[in-house]
C-alpha cells in the first residue's frame, strides 16, 4: 500500500499553464498519475498535453471526483487558490510554490483544518507512491531511476534530498511505500509527526527515513511522537546543516532553516532524536545499512 495517494487518486494542477507546470504535467501523465484537469484563470478551454484547462476549480469538481490539487501559482495568488480548492471539496492540497508569507500559510492551514483537508508543503516538490502515482515535480523526468515500490516511508524538508535519499535506498534494494517532500518553510501543512500515523496504518510500510535541518520544532515533535506512541516503525534520520550551529541568525537553505532559539540547532535535534530511539546517520550512503540493521531488530 501507500499513504495519501495511490493509482486511483485523481487530481488537478492549479496554475497548469506555467512553464514548470507544463513539464510537471508531462511527467505526471508519463508516470500514470490520474491528472484530470488544470486551472488557470482566463485560459479555460485550452489544453496542456491533452489535459483540459478550466477557469475555475468548480467546473472540474462539479463534473467528477477530484481527490487532490497541486498548486503552482505565484506566491501572491496561493492563498486564494488554496481556498478555492478547499471550498470546492478537495481534501489533499500540495503547495509547490515557495516564498509565501508565513501569515498566509497559517491562514491556509487554518482553513484546511476547518474543512478537513490535508495540506502538503508549501515549498515542496510533492509526493510519490512509486509504481502508483506521483503528484508534483518530484523525481523529474527520470523519476523511475530514483524511486521504486517498496516498504520505506520517506519524509524530507528538502525536495531534492527526498530524491537523493530515495535513490540511495533504491540502489541498496529498498523501495519506498510513499516519499513525501514535506516542504522547507517554517510552517508546513504536514509535519513528520502528523504523517506518522498514516505510515503506521499502512501495513506495507516497515521503516521511516527522514531528512532534517536546523530551525523549527518539527524534529523535536517527531522525537516526542516516537517516544510517546512507541511507534512500531524504526526511524532513521539524516541531519544537514551542522555548520549552521556556529552561525545563529544567518539564513541558509530553506525559509524554515533559520536557527531562532536554543532548541533548534542541529546538535540539539540530533541529541533529542537519538534520545527517543531514532537512528541518526552521519552520511546519506550510511542510511540503507542502518535501515537494514533496524529492520533486523538490532538497536539504534
Amino acid at each position, binding site marked *: 500500500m501507500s499513504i495519501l495517494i495511490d493509482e486511483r487518486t485523481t487530481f488537478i494542477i492549479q496554475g497548469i499553464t506555467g512553464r514548470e507546470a507544463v513539464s510537471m504535467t508531462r511527467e505526471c501523465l508519463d508516470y500514470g498519475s490520474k491528472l484530470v484537469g488544470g486551472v488557470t484563470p482566463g485560459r479555460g478551454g485550452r489544453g496542456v498535453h491533452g489535459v483540459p484547462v478550466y477557469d475555475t476549480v468548480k467546473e472540474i469538481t462539479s463534473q467528477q471526483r477530484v481527490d487532490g490539487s497541486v498548486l503552482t501559482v505565484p506566491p501572491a495568488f496561493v492563498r486564494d487558490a488554496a481556498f478555492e480548492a478547499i471550498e470546492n471539496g478537495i481534501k489533499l492540497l500540495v503547495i509547490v510554490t515557495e516564498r509565501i508569507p508565513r*501569515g498566509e500559510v497559517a491562514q491556509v492551514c487554518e482553513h484546511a483544518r476547518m474543512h478537513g483537508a490535508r495540506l502538503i508543503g508549501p515549498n515542496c516538490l510533492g509526493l510519490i507512491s512509486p509504481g502508483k502515482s506521483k503528484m508534483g515535480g518530484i523525481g523529474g523526468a527520470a*523519476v523511475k531511476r530514483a524511486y521504486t515500490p517498496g516498504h520505506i516511508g520517506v519524509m*524530507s524538508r*528538502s525536495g531534492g534530498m527526498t530524491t537523493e535519499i530515495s535513490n540511495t535506498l533504491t540502489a541498496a534494494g529498498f523501495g519506498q511505500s510513499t516519499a513525501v517532500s514535506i516542504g*522547507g518553510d517554517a510552517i508546513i501543512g504536514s509535519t513528520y509527526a502528523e504523517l506518522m500515523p498514516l505510515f503506521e496504518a499502512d501495513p506495507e510500510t516497515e521503516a521511516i527515513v527522514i531528512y532534517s535541518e536546523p530551525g523549527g520544532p518539527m524534529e523535536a515533535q517527531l522525537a516526542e511522537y516516537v517516544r510517546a506512541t512507541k511507534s512500531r516503525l524504526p526511524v532513521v534520520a539524516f541531519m*544537514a546543516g551542522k555548520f549552521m550551529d556556529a552561525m545563529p541568525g544567518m539564513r541558509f537553505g*530553506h525559509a*524554515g532553516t533559520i536557527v531562532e532559539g536554543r532548541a533548534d540547532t542541529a546538535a540539539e535535534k540530533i541529541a533529542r532524536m537519538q534520545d527517543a530511539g531514532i537512528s541518526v546517520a552521519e552520511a546519506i550512503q550510511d542510511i540503507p545499512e542502518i535501515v537494514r540493521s533496524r529492520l533486523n531488530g538490532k538497536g539504534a
Partner: protein
Amino acid sequence: MRFYEFEAKTLLGMSGVPVSKGGTALTADDAARIAGEVGGDVVLKSQVLSGGRMKAGGIKFASAAEEARTAAEQILALEIGGQRPRCVLVESKQPVKKEYYAGVIYDALAKLPVAIFSDLGGIDIEQVAETHPGHVARVHFSTFSPFPEFKMKELVASLGISGGELNALTRIMSQLAQAFLRYGLTLAEINPLAQLDDGSIIALDSHLDMEEEARDGQAALLARLGIGREETRLARPPTPFEIRGAEVDASDHRGVAGRVVEFDGTLGCVIGAGGGSLTIFDAIRKFGGDPANYCEIGGNPSVKKAAELTKLILSKPGVGKICVIMNVVSNTRVDIVARGVVKGVIEAGYDPAEKIAIFRIPGSWEDEGFKILEKYGVEYCDRSVPMSEAARRAVEKMRKAKGEPEVVA
C-alpha cells in the same frame, strides 16, 4: 530582517502602542539638542541589531544636554558585536514601577500565531519560562478577522491582573498582535513593557522581525521607514561579494543561482539545492576543506546565470578550485548547469579541467551534461558516487594542489 529599536517603536506608535518621547541622533550635537527638547532625565541607546547593549556600554543615562552630548559621543564610537551603531536613540527616562513582557510569534506546530505575556518583564523570556513557568501565559489566536480581543484579555487576566491595568494591557497586547498580522512580522516583542509611576503603560524596548517573504507585500511600510532592498539585516551586513551574488541571481528570473554567503576559505562552491547545499557544505568541512562560499542553485537557471555565478566565485581572491555538486535533481537540467559552469571558468580565463575539482550533478539531461564535461576534460561523477564522496575528492584535490599531505578522514 530585524528592525532597529527606533524603527520598531515607530511601527508600534503607528499601531497605537504608547512609546517614550524622543528621537534619533547621528551626531553628539543632535543628541544634546534632542535631550534639551525632551527635557529632564534622558536615556541614550545605541542602535545596533543585537542584544546585550547595556552590558556592552551601549546604553547610558544623562540629566542635562551636555551630559547627553558626552554619552552620545561614547555610544556612537562604540562597536557592539562587530556592529557600528546606526544612530543613537535619545528618549525621556521614566520612573518605572513594574515591568511586563508582551510577545507574539508563530507556533509552527499549532500553525497559528501565539501571544505570550509575562508579569516578569525586562529579562529573556525563554529564561523566565524555564525558571518561573507560572509567570508566563500563552494563547493562540486565529489569523482570520475579526481579531479576538477577548483572548488577549483572558491572557493578561490569567496572571491575576485586573482593574485598569487589565484593560490597558489588553489594549496593548491586541495592538501588538494586530501589528504582527498586518505587517507580516514573525516576531513582535515588547520587553520591557513598563508601568510607570503615574500608572500609564509604555513600550520601553522592542524587537520586531519581518521575514524576507513579507517584504514585497510590505513595500509601503519599508519605504516609510527608509529601509532599502539591499538591507538584508541578517546576523551581519552583506559583503560586497554577497551583494554581487544577489545581483547575479536577480539578473534573470529563471531559477536560482545565488544566496551566496562569503566564507574565508579557498574552495569555491557551486552547489545546490536548498537541502543539498547544507549537506555538501557539512561534508566539505568534515573532510577538512575550507569553503570560500556557500550558495544555492535551484530550479532552472540559465547558462548565463550559472556562468556569472561561477565567474563571481572565481574572482574571489584565494579561490584555487571550484566544486560543482548537487543532489539528484528533479527539474534542474544537468547540461545547462554544466555548460554554464564551463563557460564561466573559460570566461574567467582558466582551464575547466584544472579549475573544476569535481562535477557531481545527476538527473535530467545528465548524459548531455557529462558529454560537455568530457570534452573539456573535467572530472565528473554520477549518482553512484555519494555527495559526501564527491566533496571529499574535491577537498583532496585542493590539498594536493597546495602540496599538502593526504589526510585520512
